[in-house]
């Protein structure tokens, strides 16, 4: 073999090794079925003397990997994949949370508008705390407030569309809501305070869901839809009734009594931990939603500690504990797979 041929063979081996490594971007099941065939085509299409994979080829493989992981056709068969199930769970859980936040906020605003005086402000980092301000809220800033409160309530529509299984319309609606919300936010601090980051993550998840995962979320969607509407009605009626006292009792969440709030967060984490014994999908999805929803608030509190004016320990605990539970579930699942145990169910 001449020196030039040896050099080319060395380049070829290096390229093959790099392509083989790149193919790890594909799910294991797909790789087992197709890796040798793909590698053969990749090597045949590569120019002589090439040492590194082409950027465009890399991007196309990344797109294929994403598609297959999200439940696209694999060898002509629609596959139920874990990543696809997680994206679906993030989309559904995130839409529920956003619908809840938006509908409650709008209901309270409407309550204020219809029964002046009195301004009740609700924020999700104080989920059960109502602030009652003195004075009349009607001023020039009100119009902007109405829009900011009305737009997120549109997530209720997304939730309904997911329950019906109209994923394409739900995706477009979510994107529109996200863009309008982002447009309505004034600055980066507001983006961190409002649910813009969560809306972005949920929109991305909805767009990522493909194949068998884009099926109707009938039970979860309808129950959540009814629960959100019920809560919104309750919040709307609350302004004049004695129930306000009951709500005031829950003010402990993140505001005054950490023990009460921490107990509620711990109960939620234990419930997620029980689910995690069966499947990693929902615990991971809830951790993603929690981080997307609470992360910006915690960052903002760290940057502007005086602004928040409340104790965020329970929320920090909730987010961290959910991430921990999800992490443990994933590690446990991986170890079980290595030991050759039957895979944990996806759903």
């Amino acid at each position, binding site marked *: 073999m001449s020196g030039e041929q040896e050099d080319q063979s060395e380049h070829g081996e290096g390229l093959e090794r790099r392509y083989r490594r790149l193919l790890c971007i594909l799910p294991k099941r797909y790789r087992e079925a*197709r890796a*040798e*065939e*793909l*590698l*053969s*085509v*990749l*090597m*045949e*299409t590569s120019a002589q003397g090439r040492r590194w994979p082409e950027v*465009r*080829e890399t*991007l*196309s*493989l*990344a*797109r*294929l*990997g994403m*598609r*297959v992981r999200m439940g*696209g*056709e*694999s*060898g*002509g*068969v*629609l596959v139920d994949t874990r990543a696809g199930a997680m994206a679906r769970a993030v989309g559904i859980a995130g839409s529920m949370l956003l619908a809840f936040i938006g509908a409650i906020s709008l209901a309270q605003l409407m309550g204020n508008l219809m029964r002046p005086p009195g301004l009740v402000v609700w924020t999700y980092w104080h989920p059960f705390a109502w602030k009652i301000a003195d004075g009349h809220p009607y001023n020039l800033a009100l119009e902007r407030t109405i829009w900011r409160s009305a737009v997120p309530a549109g997530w209720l529509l997304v939730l309904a569309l997911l329950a019906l299984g109209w994923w394409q319309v739900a995706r477009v609606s979510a994107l529109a809501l996200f863009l309008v919300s982002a447009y309505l936010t004034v600055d980066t601090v507001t983006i961190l305070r409002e649910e813009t980051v969560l809306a972005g993550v949920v929109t991305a998840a909805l767009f990522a869901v493909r194949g068998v995962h884009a099926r109707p979320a009938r039970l979860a969607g309808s129950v959540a839809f009814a629960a959100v509407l019920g809560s919104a009605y309750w919040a709307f009626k609350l302004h004049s009734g004695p129930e306000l006292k009951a709500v005031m009792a829950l003010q402990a969440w993140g505001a005054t009594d950490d023990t009460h709030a921490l107990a509620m967060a711990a109960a939620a984490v234990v419930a997620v931990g029980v689910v995690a014994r069966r499947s990693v999908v929902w615990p991971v999805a809830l951790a993603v939603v929690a981080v997307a929803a609470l992360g910006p608030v915690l960052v903002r509190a760290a940057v502007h500690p005086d602004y928040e004016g409340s104790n965020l320990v329970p929320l920090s605990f909730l987010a961290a504990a959910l991430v921990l539970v999800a992490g443990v579930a994933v590690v446990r699942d991986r170890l079980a797979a290595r030991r050759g145990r039957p895979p944990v169910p996806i759903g």
Partner: protein
Amino acid sequence: MSSSSSRTEQTFQILTALVDGPLHGYGIIQEVGRLSDGRTRLRVGTLYGALDRLSGEGLLVLDREETVSGRLRRYYRLTDAGAQVLAEDAERIARQAAVALERLKKRGAPRASLGGTA
């Protein structure tokens, strides 16, 4: 929207490449390049995404496997359903092209640019 109207140009070219007989992945990429006069260069990820989708729709099937110089080759074949869908797509595109050419002729576009001979 019908499935045929939403089919992409690349998918159309892949189905066309398989009309003359089964081809393996690299063969499809080469044939599509030839059919498009080098304008289309299919990426491997794009090709296999399309092959997965078309297999799912029953428009093509795996014909055979062989190993050449230690490399695995899988040949894909157009099914009857695939041929029928391709024929429908081709007729639709031909009708649209005919309308476009007719209108361009009325507008007085140069003959050479319409694909005619001088």
